[in-house]
């Protein structure tokens, strides 16, 4: 054509021109697609990056490995290099992500005007105010400026001290409600040191816990979970198969107690008595070590009034039980006593027990150069708050702690804060303390900032930011450093680097290499020498004999909500507390006998009145607490802290004395009620095979528990067996190792975009968890049952899956690798599959799931978000399986055993879950089955569903033999 424009080209142009004209019309919003013209060498779209950092959800200081997808942290796992977490973390650690993406986080600085309302201010204005207030206060006199923070790492402590000094002050206080003050005091009395010892449960044969919930919240639960599963694993000792024997002495059958052999129910405070009684029996029977260095005469004097019979009378514990514990403890080759009680004397008893049996240095040890605790002594905290109340401070900066919520009522923290003319609060979700502050500054989440941790001697955790800040927040160190002239470090990143420069110098070698290694491995981990300690009984006074109050209140940190910091995270609220199985609320556990006396039933709100105040909590009548004790968890009862935490439950901190977790209480039913919500149906198994247990005596004798003999597998198949050309995925779950911590559940929520549904949703039977911790009470007719049955239940990936043939549209189908696949797009929502599933592990989307922004940023891009009307389920993290298989394919090799790990297995601190290929008899998963043949069982195997999951029975000592 002469014009040079062919017809075809013309049409093309015309079409694109009209398309271009149409586009702005239908897409007015700015949608930018920015191509990777210059690609970031560290980011491959679709491939996750991993950053080692540290957890901030409790003082244990676990190392984390954050999975970051295209700039968003989507999953947290334990850092395998870190000696504490060793690649696993707890549910609270997992939920750190929901702290990062919490929709109620303060998005920008806010200032409170005279009328009390908050208005948005710019960072510049906010910092101008801060500077002028600080300037005025520091000029007004010495110590007019103060900082109150939570447990902090060494670098930030340096920063805060420098900041205080620059403001003519030395008032820097670190406060945390649970800082093991009792144990520190006991250690000071006995050993003259205030650091916490290191515990090695795995080195013991017998364990006595005086109210220490070491599998839930006590000191370092992830580490103890791992040690405990090692301790409880069957081992050949002195010619017979045995497990570690564990006793729990305390008022409540906690998750920790449930995993022990025996629960010795005593009123709060009476643990000490039992400890001293055991000592007295051991002395009498000469079960104490003669060369332990303990002054036995002094000890005899100390325990004189703790004769087992007298203690038995005072506490109601049978003398026989005390004798049995003493014998077990004294004769064990390695024993450990620990205490989590609020009574310092109980810690004293535990230390003396360990010392007198020569276990110091073996199952428990102090380390050289131990950090002296990240928080201040109770007396220091009290005088600090007194000074606030006396008006001695003009400007107070509060960050990372919530004194108004968690300080004991006798400190009158709220009143004290009111007396401070200018309170600056820095943090994430505005809490009760923020409600009293004049200026609110959004602080970086730990996953957005540089920090470090020194949880124990030899372990230095390095926290690095894993992503760009979600909100307009700033790092606390950066904020305070910007207020001082010529600071030593310009930013907290520099401060951290400076600390690590010192560590690097000590370690030797080039700093650059050291720094790269530290960031890659998440810290510096060195072996530390055991400190030589000498127990000194000279200054020990025997505690006054215990008298039980008529009714006592016992509070304990909630396994998920801890000291209240977990309450703003929907995952943690929705996880059923393993023993009570209650979600989204708090509860007062009352023994049925006591409930009858008080005339209360489930859900009836009771008023609990101590000398400090009143709380109202709905009753939960359960035999999991001893009579005349009312157990209420810490963690709820917030008046602020965002939509998930505010106005749920009651706060026991408000009615307890300083450092106490128990009090004498008067109880009055109010006549009101509030429904406690649980996803659990019945608490008994009704003789069905769901969670099974056997005694160690049976295992040693090679017996299978009665009624659970392996069934004869006859040729009763109608259809030919499945053909699995490559793999057949399976799982082995060791119920004995499982500690009920629910970390697997939280990990599944994070990995598989499982939505949370809230209290009403759970009440309506809409809970979405693909894996759950099932909890059953033993039934009356059972011989030698465990204290409680606890096990994770997830899709069993049956070979003869009842869910598959009933689906009319093949949405539920059998994959070539033995999984019960579910095609979400194909599902029409008949729900027949769930009706036919005997394990009830399928979950239906009753509504369109919602993640209030920016919680949605956490969603895993590898897993589809399901819409309303679709059935969903566990597929052993099929996206991870795909990932592993594709990796192997690319590298032209077979999939290695252990290369693919589902989220639940990865999260499990106790390594209870092993995943692998059933076709590979050498896989760790199959070996675990083979090595524990006698303990193998499958849930409801009589239905011939042929699950791919094999459970290993729980083990415990027979009654009276523990």
């Amino acid at each position, binding site marked *: 054509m002469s014009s040079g424009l062919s017809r075809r080209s013309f049409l093309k142009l015309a079409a694109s021109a009209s398309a271009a004209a149409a586009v702005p019309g239908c897409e007015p919003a700015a949608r930018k697609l920015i191509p990777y013209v210059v690609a970031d060498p560290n980011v491959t779209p679709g491939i996750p990056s991993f950053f080692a950092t540290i957890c901030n959800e409790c003082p244990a200081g676990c190392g984390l490995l954050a999975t970051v997808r295209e700039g968003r942290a989507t999953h947290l796992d334990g850092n395998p290099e870190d000696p504490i977490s060793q690649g696993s973390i707890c549910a609270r650690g997992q939920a750190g992500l929901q702290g990062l993406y919490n929709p109620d986080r303060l998005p920008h600085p806010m200032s409170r005007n005279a009328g009390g309302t908050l208005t948005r201010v710019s960072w510049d204005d906010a910092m101008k105010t801060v500077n002028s207030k600080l300037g005025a206060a520091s000029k007004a006199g010495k110590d007019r400026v103060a900082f109150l923070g939570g447990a902090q790492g060494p670098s930030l402590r340096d920063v805060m001290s420098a900041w205080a000094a620059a403001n003519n002050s030395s008032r820097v206080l670190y406060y945390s409600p649970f800082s093991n003050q009792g144990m520190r005091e006991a250690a000071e009395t006995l050993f003259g040191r205030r650091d916490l010892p290191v515990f090695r449960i795995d080195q013991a044969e017998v364990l006595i816990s005086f109210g220490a919930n070491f599998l839930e919240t006590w000191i370092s639960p992830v580490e103890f979970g791992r040690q405990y599963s090692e301790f409880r694993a069957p081992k050949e000792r002195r010619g017979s198969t045995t497990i570690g024997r564990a006793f729990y002495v305390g008022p409540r059958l906690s998750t920790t107690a449930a995993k022990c052999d025996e629960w010795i129910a005593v009123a709060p405070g009476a643990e000490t008595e039992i400890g001293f009684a055991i000592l007295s029996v051991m002395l009498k029977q000469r079960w104490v070590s003669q060369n332990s260095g303990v002054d036995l005469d002094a000890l005899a004097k100390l325990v004189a009034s703790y004769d087992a019979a007298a203690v038995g009378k005072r506490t109601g514990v049978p003398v026989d039980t005390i004798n049995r514990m003493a014998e077990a403890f004294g004769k064990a080759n390695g024993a450990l006593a620990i205490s989590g009680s609020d009574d310092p004397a109980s810690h004293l008893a535990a230390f003396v027990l360990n010392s007198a049996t020569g276990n110091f240095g073996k199952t428990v040890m102090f380390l050289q150069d131990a950090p002296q605790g990240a928080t201040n002594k109770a007396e220091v905290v009290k005088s600090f708050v007194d000074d606030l109340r006396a008006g001695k401070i003009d400007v107070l900066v509060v960050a990372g702690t919530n004194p108004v919520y968690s300080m004991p009522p006798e400190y009158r923290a709220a009143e004290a804060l009111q007396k401070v003319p200018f309170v600056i609060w820095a943090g994430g979700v505005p809490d009760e303390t923020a409600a009293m502050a004049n200026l609110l500054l959004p602080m970086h989440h730990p996953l957005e900032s540089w920090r470090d941790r020194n949880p124990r001697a030899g372990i230095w955790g390095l926290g690095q930011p894993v992503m760009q800040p979600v909100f307009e927040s700033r790092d606390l160190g950066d904020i305070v450093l910007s207020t001082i002239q010529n600071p030593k470090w310009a930013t907290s990143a520099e401060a951290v680097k400076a600390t690590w420069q010192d560590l690097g110098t000590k370690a030797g070698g080039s700093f650059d290499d050291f720094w790269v290694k530290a960031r890659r491995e998440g810290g510096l981990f060195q072996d530390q020498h055991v400190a030589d300690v000498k127990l000194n009984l000279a200054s020990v006074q025997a505690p006054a004999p215990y008298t039980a109050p008529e009714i006592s209140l016992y509070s304990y940190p909630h396994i998920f909500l801890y000291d209240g910091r977990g309450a703003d995270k929907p995952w943690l609220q929705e996880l059923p507390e393993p023993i009570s199985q209650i979600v989204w609320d708090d509860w007062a556990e009352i023994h049925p006998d006591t409930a009858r006396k008080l005339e209360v039933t489930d859900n009836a709100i009771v008023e609990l009145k101590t000398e400090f105040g009143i709380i109202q909590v709905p009753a939960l009548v359960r035999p999991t607490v001893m009579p005349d004790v009312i157990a209420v968890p810490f963690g709820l009862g917030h008046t602020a802290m965002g939509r998930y935490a505010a106005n749920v439950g009651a706060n026991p901190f408000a009615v307890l004395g300083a450092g106490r977790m128990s009090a004498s209480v008067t109880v009055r039913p109010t006549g009101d009620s509030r429904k406690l919500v649980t*996803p*659990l*149906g*019945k*608490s*008994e*198994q*009704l*003789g*069905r095979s*769901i969670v099974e247990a056997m005694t160690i005596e049976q295992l040693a004798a090679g017996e299978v528990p009665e009624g659970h003999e392996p069934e004869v597998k006859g040729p009763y198949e109608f259809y030919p067996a499945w053909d699995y050309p490559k793999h057949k995925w399976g799982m082995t779950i060791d119920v004995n190792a499982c500690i009920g911590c629910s970390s697997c559940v939280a990990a599944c929520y994070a990995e598989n975009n499982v939505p949370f549904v809230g209290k009403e949703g759970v009440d*309506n*039977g*809409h*809970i979405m968890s693909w894996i759950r911790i*099932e*909890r*059953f009470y033993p039934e009356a007719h059972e011989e030698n049952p465990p204290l409680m049955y606890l096990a994770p*239940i997830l899709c069993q990936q049956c070979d003869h899956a*009842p869910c598959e*043939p*009933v*689906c*009319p*549209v*093949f949405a539920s189908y059998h994959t070539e690798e033995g999984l019960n696949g579910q095609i979400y797009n*194909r*599902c*029409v*929502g*008949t*729900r*027949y599959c*769930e*009706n*036919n599933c*005997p*394990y*009830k592990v399928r*979950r*239906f*989307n*009753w*509504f*369109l799931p919602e993640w209030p922004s920016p919680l949605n940023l956490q969603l895993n891009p590898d897993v589809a978000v399901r819409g*309303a*009307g*679709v*059935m969903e389920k566990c597929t052993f993290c099929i996206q991870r399986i795909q990932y592993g298989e594709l990796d192997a394919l690319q590298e032209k090799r077979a999939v290695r055993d252990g290369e693919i790990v589902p989220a639940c297995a990865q999260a499990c601190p106790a390594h209870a879950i092993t995943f692998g290929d059933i076709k590979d008899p050498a896989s760790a998963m199959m070996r675990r089955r083979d090595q524990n043949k006698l303990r193998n069982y499958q849930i*409801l195997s009589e*239905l011939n569903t042929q699950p791919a999951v094999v459970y290993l029975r729980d083990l415990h000592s027979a009654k009276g033999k523990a």
Partner: protein
Amino acid sequence: MLYWAWILFCFTLVGVAAALWARQIYVGLGVSGLRQPVMWAIYITNFVFWVGIAHSGTLISAILFLFRTKWRTAVYRAAETMTIFAVMTAGLCPLFHLGRVWNAYWLLPYPNERSLQPDFRSPLVWDAFAVSTYLTVSLLFWSMGLIPDLANVRDHAQGIRKKIFAVLALGWQGTDRQWRHYSIIYLLMAGLATPLVLSVHSVVSWDFAMAQLPGWHSTIFAPYFVAGAIFSGVAMVITLLVPMRKLLHLEELLTPWHFDNLAKVVLLTSLIVSYSYLFETFMTWYSADPIEQMTFHMRYFGPWGYLFWIMVLCNCIIPLFLFFPSVRVNLLQIWIISIFVNIGMWLERFVIIAGSLRVNFEPAQWGPYHPSITEIMITVGTFAWFLGLFSLFAKHAPIISMTEMKEGIMWLRKALKKGDSTKAA
């Protein structure tokens, strides 16, 4: 006037139900009371109930036709009409219950580019086939039977009505040739419809029997459900005919003798159903399966035990009054009994479906169920929809077969001559 008020009332309720359904589709099934583990409840109960109702129509029109039962002629049109509307209602119920109803057609095999077909192992697919076949055959059979009557109406009508009925009558002239063809096809259709009476509800029962849930997984379900379906269906015929006879002044055509026969069917099927309950219990005891036994224990004495005992009262005890001939010819009394049977049979399905799901294999996953207002109003809507349609038809079309009544009149006269007062009264 009263009639139109009634129609308006019915379709207002249908409108309310439709609005609630629309909301359910938009928001999600969470607006129903369905939950873990009771994934099926009122919607499926309604489905089985309405399919059951649909059974007696074909039974009366086809099976009794083959047996040349005389009393059939007066009631079969009404029963068959009831069948059509009941199947139409039943067909809606699974749609209410689907999570993603807009994809409901995936249950049917249809050609598509991805060669996706339904899973023929699933009883729900069998169900889709069974119910749609039943609707098709019933519809054909019913419209076949209507042709001579429609022609009759056409011949007597004026204006627009004449035109409408002329189309519907398909050019029926009443010639010998046409009558001959008609009789052959009618007989063939009756033969075709007969096995469906047994198969459809058997298939429906397999929705449950094929699952392994205790309380569902049982081999007696097919005969047990078919008997139950006929039981409830005939009872529904009585429930509809008694007021219809009064309102449309059909006393001459629908005599107590007809109701006496219907009542005998109700009594017989009631006894079969009672026997099934007993036998189910016996089998559960005899199986020695503790899980199955627990399910039945919970069915009788659990939180919904009262529903079971109301059901026993309605289905097993109250129908025993039909042993008295005087009750069988007392229309008010059998009408009341028939309503009890309807209630009882609805409860039976609910007790089996929701009650068994509630008490499943996994005690930790047992859970309660409370119907929501959406479910209740949709259920009410299905009744309104059914009654509204039936009323419309009864008012505007021949609800009693004129042709067959004419044939029957000869025989009736004979019977009267014999002085058989009970039959002819």
